[in-house]
């Protein structure tokens, strides 16, 4: 760590191997201070670990190796730094960083001190070597940042031979290139970030420059003003900012991991819930850290609680995002589940799209999350019209569409709509799968592959629909004797796969009855979709009771939001 240093300006001060060690340390420390930010920027589909961490580990080893060398010759120290970087490199970003140092060291070979010409040549060789170090160089990455810095140094050399001035211009250009990385790489633009490796390099170069100018380079101190130009291109995770990272271990008895996961997931994002009946590890990002913790306490005891304010860490950066291209299309998952923003699948004309009928807003969310492109609201007492289904089909951007009616009374209307569509649009293909219940539709949707062959996909979906059994619990609207079951108006009744098989005076009694019919030895998972007349607490209490009877089964509770049916169950 470099505390405070004397200035290293102008030509008259000699930059030798000793100075390079201090410069490299400053680069390392400045990166150390900022590496969590660099990690946050990592959006590439092919990262090796966290970019900031990888680059920091590479720099640490580079400096460590250099410090051990007793020499003032800059060429020797640079070579040692490069060797240390190569030996300590981690991940792609670390490898590229090590190649930058190798190129730089090559240019300085056998030199005792640095001058402007060597600096310019060093930056150039660094960039060239780094480009060669990558199989397919991509612009908009650390490579671009390194190359533009080198090019600017060459231009600056025409005007001055002052090392610090050249370095200043190179760093400014590096920052400028970094800010433009989202324009070069769509994936960055989409995620609303600048390139992580490029930002790591900027921090290293900036740390070195700060030292050269005699500015402080201390660890763990955020200097927002210095990096303000980064701020403009950083988007927060959603409109409410970064929120809190909450982690804890929940200990209790008969804990249901899936239920805990479902509940926690509805509170925030980046959810990770793993464990068993006795201990569950919870990790989630939320805006209100009290919610997951209160929920945890309601189920058992908590330990190892960690709450980190991600907002604080980034508030200097997340200043404004208005009007910048960096914030388009980011995935936003607000805490309240009723507002879960669901990305509609991006379908091409050649893909297969799904139209699903859903009988409640919660069920609609489930279908949507599993990939349905269009939803038609409707169910037992409000069957959608052929026109509504027709409109939904033609609104799917894909030309091939599979329709999931999810109710036996809607299948015909769906088939009619399908015929109308294909009569009118010769280029469209529509298949109606005869799903008779919501759980059948959900099960059918599991193997859906938008890029697949229509016949194969529909065949797989058709088979999958029968992987579940459906239970439905509602209130009888009239007295009747049906299928050998006597029902009085106002009683609770239970249906299994559409057939009336149980009646009773309470929901729980009927649920016990139908689960007894549905859940055999092989049954593994029971999903309960609760209706719009119930609240989550009631439903959860029922799940707690039922899980006593079925200790070997997993229960999942989902807000289905359907009318009339207290519960829809799927058993698989």
């Amino acid at each position, binding site marked *: 760590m470099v505390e405070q240093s004397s200035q290293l300006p102008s030509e008259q001060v000699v930059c030798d191997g000793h100075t390079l060690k201090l410069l490299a340390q400053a680069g390392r420390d400045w990166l150390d201070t900022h590496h969590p930010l660099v990690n946050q920027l990592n959006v590439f589909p092919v990262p090796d670990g966290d970019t900031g*961490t990888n680059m920091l580990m590479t720099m640490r080893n580079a400096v460590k190796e250099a410090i051990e060398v007793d020499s003032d010759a800059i060429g020797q120290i640079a070579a040692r730094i490069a060797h240390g970087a190569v030996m300590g490199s*981690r991940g792609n970003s670390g490898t590229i960083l090590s190649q930058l140092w190798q190129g730089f060291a090559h240019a300085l070979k056998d030199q005792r001190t640095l001058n402007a010409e060597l600096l310019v040549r060093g930056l150039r060789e660094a960039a060239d070597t780094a480009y060669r170090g990558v199989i397919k160089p991509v612009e908009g990455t650390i490579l671009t940042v390194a190359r533009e810095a080198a090019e600017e140094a060459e231009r600056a050399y025409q005007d001055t031979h002052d090392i610090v001035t050249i370095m200043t211009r190179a760093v400014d250009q590096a920052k400028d290139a970094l800010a433009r990385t989202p324009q070069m790489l769509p994936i960055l633009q989409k995620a609303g970030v600048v390139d992580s490796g490029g930002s790591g390099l900027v921090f290293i170069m900036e740390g070195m420059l700060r030292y050269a100018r005699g500015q402080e380079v201390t660890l763990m101190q955020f200097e927002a003003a210095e990096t303000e130009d980064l701020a403009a291109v950083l988007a927060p995770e959603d409109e409410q900012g970064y929120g809190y990272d909450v982690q804890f271990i929940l200990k209790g008895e008969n804990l249901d991991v899936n239920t805990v996961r479902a509940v926690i997931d509805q509170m925030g994002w980046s959810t990770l819930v*793993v464990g068993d009946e006795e201990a569950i590890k919870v990790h989630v990002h939320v805006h209100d850290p009290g919610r997951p913790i209160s929920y945890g306490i309601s189920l058992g005891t908590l330990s190892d609680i960690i709450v980190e304010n991600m907002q604080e860490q980034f508030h200097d950066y997340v200043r404004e995002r208005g009007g910048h291209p960096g914030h388009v299309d980011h995935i936003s998952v607000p805490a309240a589940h009723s507002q879960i923003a669901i990305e509609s699948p991006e379908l091409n004309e050649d893909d297969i799209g799904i139209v699903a009928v859903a009988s409640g807003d919660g069920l609609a969310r489930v279908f949507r999350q599993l990939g349905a492109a269009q939803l038609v609201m409707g169910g037992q007492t409000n069957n959608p019209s052929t026109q509504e289904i027709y409109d939904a089909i033609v609104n799917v951007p894909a030309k091939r569409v599979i329709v999931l009616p999810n109710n036996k009374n809607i299948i015909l209307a769906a088939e009619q709509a399908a015929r109308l569509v294909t009569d009118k649009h010769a280029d469209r293909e529509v298949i109606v799968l005869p799903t008779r219940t919501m759980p059948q539709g959900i099960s059918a949707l599991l193997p859906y592959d938008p890029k697949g062959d229509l016949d194969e996909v529909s065949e797989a979906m058709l088979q999958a629909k029968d992987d579940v059994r459906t239970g439905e619990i509602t209130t009888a609207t009239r007295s009747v004797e049906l299928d050998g079951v006597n029902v009085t108006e106002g009683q609770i009744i239970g249906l299994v796969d559409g057939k009336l098989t149980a009646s009773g005076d309470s929901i729980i009694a009927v649920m016990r009855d139908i689960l007894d019919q549905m859940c055999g030895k092989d049954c593994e998972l029971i999903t309960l979709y609760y209706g719009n007349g119930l609240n989550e607490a009631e439903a959860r209490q029922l799940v707690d009771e039922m899980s006593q009877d079925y200790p070997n089964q997993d229960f999942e509770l989902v807000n289905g939001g359907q009318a009339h049916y207290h519960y829809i169950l799927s058993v698989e």
Partner: protein
Amino acid sequence: MPRTLVMTDSTCDLPPEWVRRFDIRIVPTYVQYGLESLADDGVQLTRTDFYRRLATNEALPTTSAPPLGQTHQIMAQALDDADHVVALTAPAKLSGIYNTFRLSAEQLGRERVTLIDSGMLSMGLGWMVITAAEAAQQGAEPVEIKKAVANMGPRVDVWAALDTVEYLRRSGRVGWAAAMMSQLLQIKPVIRLYDSEVTALTRVRTSQRAFDTLVELAHKAAPLERLAVLHTNNLPGARRLAETLADIHPAHEPVMVDVTPVIGVHVGPNGLGLGIVRQS
């Protein structure tokens, strides 16, 4: 001195006794807990430790390619011990490992190293390495070894039934992982690695259905030349899968592999998989 040695990385998941038998040179890959970096060589980080740590309240680790210098050292040693090195790696598309091999080969002499991007992981890569090692042991020329591996490549498949899609989503290495999951329902993906591409074959909601899907896939691919049962800390499941597939086992015993933590980070615990080679 052997004429050709085979070199690979630790994502090949080969059982240690085979590594010894063929003198295969293996470059470790790394699991990183913050700034603590552990090689998955079974010494610095064991399977047991890894899964124990995964179940505790630590932040999820990340993974990283080996330092370029380490690959360089191991390759240099192999070139000291043999005339030629045939090196097979994890997919360049999914990891930086290949690039460390490529740079090392360039520095040490491209003409003495035959470098192959296997496009595979775990025993998919493992079977290709074994094929190369067997050929090398029988004195095949590097070019013949390369041909044998290339001939085998299209017949190699890896399938995995994951207990949850969450690890895959968090790893960020496959773009579709986030899209396939549901925040409302627990989804278990069945995935395929083939020719450097990780794709989703289907989604299921129960482990029995996941198990059945793997069995179906294996039966469709039979007759098999090689079969390895893969798992992430799920030995009982792996045993049951091996027994269920007894009818299509190739002549030898099925290999059962607890996959390396470096892959475990991305797929999570309690997964099952198969690494197979179809008969030609």
